[in-house]
Every structure is written in C-alpha cells, then in structure tokens.
C-alpha cells in the first residue's frame, strides 16, 4: 500500500516535472516542502525538440534551445542519443504521404516524444538557417535565415537571441523576449545583463551612487538617479554612445524614481521636499516645464509607473496610512485606490510596474514582515500573491507581460530572479549578491543593441 502510494507520487512528479505542469507554484516553495495557496493556471504546452546541428552551429543550437525553454511556452524535449537520432531516423517513412520528410528526420519519433515542433539548423553560404518543422503535419513550417557572426563576436549572442524570437514567432505566432536586457543596480552602479544571464556590463560609473534605472520605451536610452549628499538628480544615458545628460530641472532637492511616458516625451518622477514627496512630470526633450501631479501635504506620493497607453499612472501613496498602490490619469486627475487592501491588516505596498499589455500591475507588499511580489488584475482589481520564499521585491515586467525579473534573497543573498507568472517557474538571472532595482528592457531594435560603454563621467 505504502509502496503503491509512493509509486503514484513518483509518477505525478514526473508528469509535473517533464510534462504538463498542471499545477505550478513558486517552485522553490515546492522544493522546500512549503505549501501555500498560490496556484497557477493549468495549461498544456506544446513540445519542442531541438535537432542536432553541424558542430560549428552547436553553440547556436544550445542558445536557441535555452531561449525557447526560457519562454516557458514549450516543453523542451531532449532526443535520446542526441545527434545519432538524426542519422538513425533516416529510415523512418513520413507519416503523411503529402510531404516527404527531409533525410534524417523522424517525425513519428518526435511525435511519440510529445513534440509539436522541431528545429534544425544548417548553413547556407554566409547565413545560418533555422528550419522549423511542424511535427504533426510532418512538414517544414518555416525557414528563417539570419546572419550570425562567429561565437565570441560582440554581436553574436544578440543575433542568436533575435533568431530565437523569430522561431517563437514562426511557431506560436507571438513575439519573444530573447533579445532583451535587464538594467540593475549593484554597489551604486548601473549594469546591464542579457535576459539569459550572459554579458553583464557596466553602463554607468560615477563617483555618485546610482539608483532606479528606467528604460525609454524604444530602448535606446535609460533614465536613472544619481544620489549625493542626500539629494538626487535625474540623468539620461544613451545606450549606443554612452553619453550622459543631466536633467537640469532636477537635482536641487531629492528627485527620484524616473519613469518615461510611452512616447518618451514626458518623464514622471518623485520629488521630496519639506512638504513631503510628490509626483511631478517634466518635458524630456526641452528639459523644462515641471508639472506637479499630486499634492500630498501630510502624505507621500511616489514611484509613478505609466500604463502602456500613457493615459494613466500607477503610483504609491501613504494617504491611507501605510504605502499602498493608487492610480490616476496622466494629468494628475481622478486619483483613486488601485490595489485593494484591508485597512489595518494588509502590509505596505510599493514599487508598481504596469505590464506592457496593460492588463496587470506588479508590485510588492509586506507580508508578515517580509516583502512578496503580487500582481493586480487591472480589469477586476483583484490581487494575487506570486512569491512566498524569502524576501521578494522590485518586480519588473518583460515585454511579453508574463515574465517578471525581481530581487530575492531566497538563495541567501539578494540576487536577481525571473518568474513566469503563467507557470510559476522561477530561474536565477544573476547570482551575484547585492543586485537590486532591476528594469527589464522593451524589445530592443537591432540598432539599439550595441555594446554599451562604461562611458564618461
């Protein structure tokens, strides 16, 4: 009986681990045997198999397979025997007579393994060609040609990431997040890291402490705050040139938490003065035209976050006592509570970030003396707790509106992690300690993906 029970559990684990992930939680919680009421939507994901590739394309194959895994939209299937399968599969006849399978393909095997799609890689002249197979149809679905510089070239990784995004578009018809990056702060400096954890680079070094980086919507520049003697000034930094431009209308007092409007013309930010902290906007291009959106008097208003249509701002206010998430029109009118809370029970809530699809606002909330990441459904105004292990804070949306990068000390130190809110799967982004205040880039235009320079002071 006991053996039977154990066998049943093992089978369930296998299904959960390699199959449909019907019920997923904050996976670290599962690892540690903690059960809490965080249940994610069940869903069956299509299987994907990355076929063997010529030796010189192996690093490309590994990167694309990982990018597709990190989309959390596929079950990545490993072929038994690796490359040999390709050869041994040549004898198998295509299941459907209409499309003859190219030599070396074994659609029935891939289908038996649960694959819906298969990816092969070949070279054609200067180009790398990704061949996307529709396994059920037994046919090639798309051929995607890309120019990928050799491994070690500064543009190699981003070129491969762009190809990964094309593969996702060709299979599921959705844009990907492989060619994106995350800004973060460590030891007072701003760094950027690729979403797969590679290529950490310093992008802002100054003798002043940096905080709160925020991308412009097109990903060519970011804003951040430099902190000195208790005062804060906002700066813009161009990713391509490394040039740094101060916003002269800021810096006389403590100006912080910059946020670009989607059209990048306006910047909302927090200004702390004798009267408290309030939200202002400025004209980015002309470095002028301050407008005050909140008048707190006896409460603080801070951390503005634009909706993707630019018409509203989520923000933090202490007007009810503890900090909670509010919303207002972009001109400061119609201020109201956004994320519901129980007065006297719910802990303070901070750091809102509006998802690029406009449907969800992520924030963190004090739960029993530590911080946890929550999401607010904008339409229904219901909140859902995403994390439960350790302290989790400062979540930032990926452009696909389903992944969040955040800071967590679940592994002992404050590091960067990524969670998929659909499956609850969590992966580390950066395992150096002390990283904080992450900001996920939009989908980066090709011309914006250049090697950032540490730049001038």
């Amino acid at each position, binding site marked *: 009986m006991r053996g039977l029970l154990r066998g049943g559990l093992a089978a369930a684990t296998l299904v959960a681990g390699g199959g449909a992930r019907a019920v997923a939680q904050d996976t670290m919680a599962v690892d540690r045997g903690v059960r809490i009421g965080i249940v994610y939507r069940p869903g069956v994901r299509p299987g994907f198999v990355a076929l063997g590739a010529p030796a010189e394309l192996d690093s490309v194959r590994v990167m694309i397979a990982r990018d597709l895994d990190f989309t959390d939209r596929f079950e990545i299937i490993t072929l038994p025997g690796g490359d040999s399968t390709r050869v041994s599969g040549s004898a198998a006849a295509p299941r459907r007579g209409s499309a003859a399978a190219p030599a070396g393909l074994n659609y029935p095997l891939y289908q038996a393994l649960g694959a819906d799609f298969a990816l092969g890689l070949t070279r054609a002249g200067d180009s790398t060609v990704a061949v996307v197979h529709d396994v059920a149809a037994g046919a090639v679905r798309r051929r995607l040609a890309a120019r990928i510089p050799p491994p070690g070239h500064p543009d190699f990784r981003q070129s491969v990431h762009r190809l990964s995004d094309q593969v996702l578009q060709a299979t599921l018809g959705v844009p990907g997040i492989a060619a994106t990056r995350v800004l973060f702060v460590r030891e007072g400096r701003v760094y950027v890291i690729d979403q797969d954890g590679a290529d950490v680079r310093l992008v802002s070094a100054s003798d002043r402490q940096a905080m709160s980086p925020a991308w412009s919507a097109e990903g060519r520049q970011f804003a951040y705050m430099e*902190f000195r003697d*208790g005062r804060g000034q906002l700066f813009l930094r161009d990713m391509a040139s490394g040039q740094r431009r101060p916003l002269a209308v800021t810096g006389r007092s*403590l100006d912080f938490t910059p946020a670009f409007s989607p059209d990048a013309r306006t910047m909302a930010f927090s200004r*702390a003065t*004798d009267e*408290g902290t309030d939200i202002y906007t400025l004209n980015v291009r002309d470095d002028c035209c301050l407008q005050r959106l909140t008048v707190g008097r006896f409460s603080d208003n801070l951390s503005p976050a634009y909706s993707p249509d630019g018409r509203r701002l989520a923000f933090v206010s*202490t007007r009810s006592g503890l900090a909670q998430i509010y919303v207002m029109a972009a001109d400061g009118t119609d201020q109201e509570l956004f994320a519901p809370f129980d007065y006297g029970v719910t802990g*303070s809530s901070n750091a809102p970030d509006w998802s690029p699809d406009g449907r969800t606002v992520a924030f963190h909330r004090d739960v029993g003396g530590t*911080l946890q990441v929550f999401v607010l459904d904008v339409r229904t105004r219901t909140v859902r707790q995403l994390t439960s292990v350790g302290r989790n*804070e400062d979540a930032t949306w990926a452009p696909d509106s389903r992944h969040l990068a955040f800071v967590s000390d679940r592994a002992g130190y404050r590091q960067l992690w990524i969670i998929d809110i659909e499956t609850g799967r969590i992966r580390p982004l950066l395992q150096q300690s002390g990283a904080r205040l992450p900001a996920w880039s939009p989908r980066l235009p090709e011309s914006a993906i250049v090697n950032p320079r540490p730049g001038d002071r």
Partner: protein
Amino acid sequence: MKRLQLFTLTVLAVAAVAAACGGNPAPATPQPNADSLAMERARQDSIAREMARQDSIRRAMEESERAARQREADSLAALARITEEVRAMLAQMINFDFDRSNIRTGDAATLDGKVGILRANPALRIRIAGHCDERGSDEYNLALGNRRAASAKQYLVNQGIAADRIEIVSYGEERPMAMGQTEEAWAQNRRAEFEIVGGGEMLVRP
C-alpha cells in the same frame, strides 16, 4: 597716559638744551669752571633718572600686555570648548519607530535642546538628514527618510526657529550606521542626523 606726555615733554626739553649747546659753538675755546661742571653733572644725573623711569614704564606696559594676551587666550580656549560642547549637543540624533516619522516623546527633549541652541546662535544654520532601516522598500525609504527629516524640522519651526535656517535631506536606507539584520541595528538606523552648514564657527550655550 599723562605720565607719558610729561615724559615726552621732558625728553623734548633735554633735546632742546642739547641742540642749543651744539648749535651755538663759541668762537673761543670755552674755559671750564666749577659752576659749569656742576651743572653738567646735574644734567647727566637727570638724564639717567629719566632713562630709568622710562625703562620701568616700558616693563610695566609689556607686563600688562602679556597678561592681556594670556587672558584673551584663556577665554578663546573656553569659547572653543563651549563651541565643541554645543556642537555635540546639536549633533545628538533622534530615532524613529518602524515606518513612522512622528517625533517620539523621549526625543522631544533632544529637539528642545536644539531649539535653545538655534535661539542662542542666530547665525547658525543646520541640515537634518533622515535615514531608514533596510526592511522597507528601497525607493520608498527615500521618501520616508525625507518625511523623518521634515518632521524634525517642523518641530523646530513650531518652536519659533525660522524655516530657512534648516534644510532637510534624505539618505533612505543607503547610509546605515549599524550593519546586521537585528532589531537593534535597525533601531539605530532609523534616525535623523543634525549637522551644521553655516554660522557654527563660534557657538554659545543656550
């Protein structure tokens, strides 16, 4: 002072006599006689007496100047001591409860002390810096630190100190005093610090 004038007159008179003698040479060699010798001796004696008197006056004046300098040095040292003492009183921090910015009852007396100092030293200008522990949100703590500094400033202004003598800044949780994740460290880090930005060279007690 009168003695000094008298002395000057005497010296002038002696000089006039000497000039009269030197400026009127006799065409014939003068014949010394008893009378003129006695007169000359009396004159020399009087010069010597005058020199002695002059010396003693100079010594007295030097002595009194030295004493004055000493007194001045003594009082400067005392003033510096007082300035240091007042500075230390002014620098005394106040602390806050978690996520709060209200002045705690125990800290009102500390702030009252600063009111006295600011009243007694009208040229004094200060900066109040608000700080937080690391438990709150990083960015929110910038606002909370500002609120704490503003709360301390408001207390001083309510006691009649001009608002433009006090500036406030916030360091959020960026400058912890005590490291470590204990209630004790956190309590120390939730604080307002007071520093002098002007007019603090010489301070008097309230």
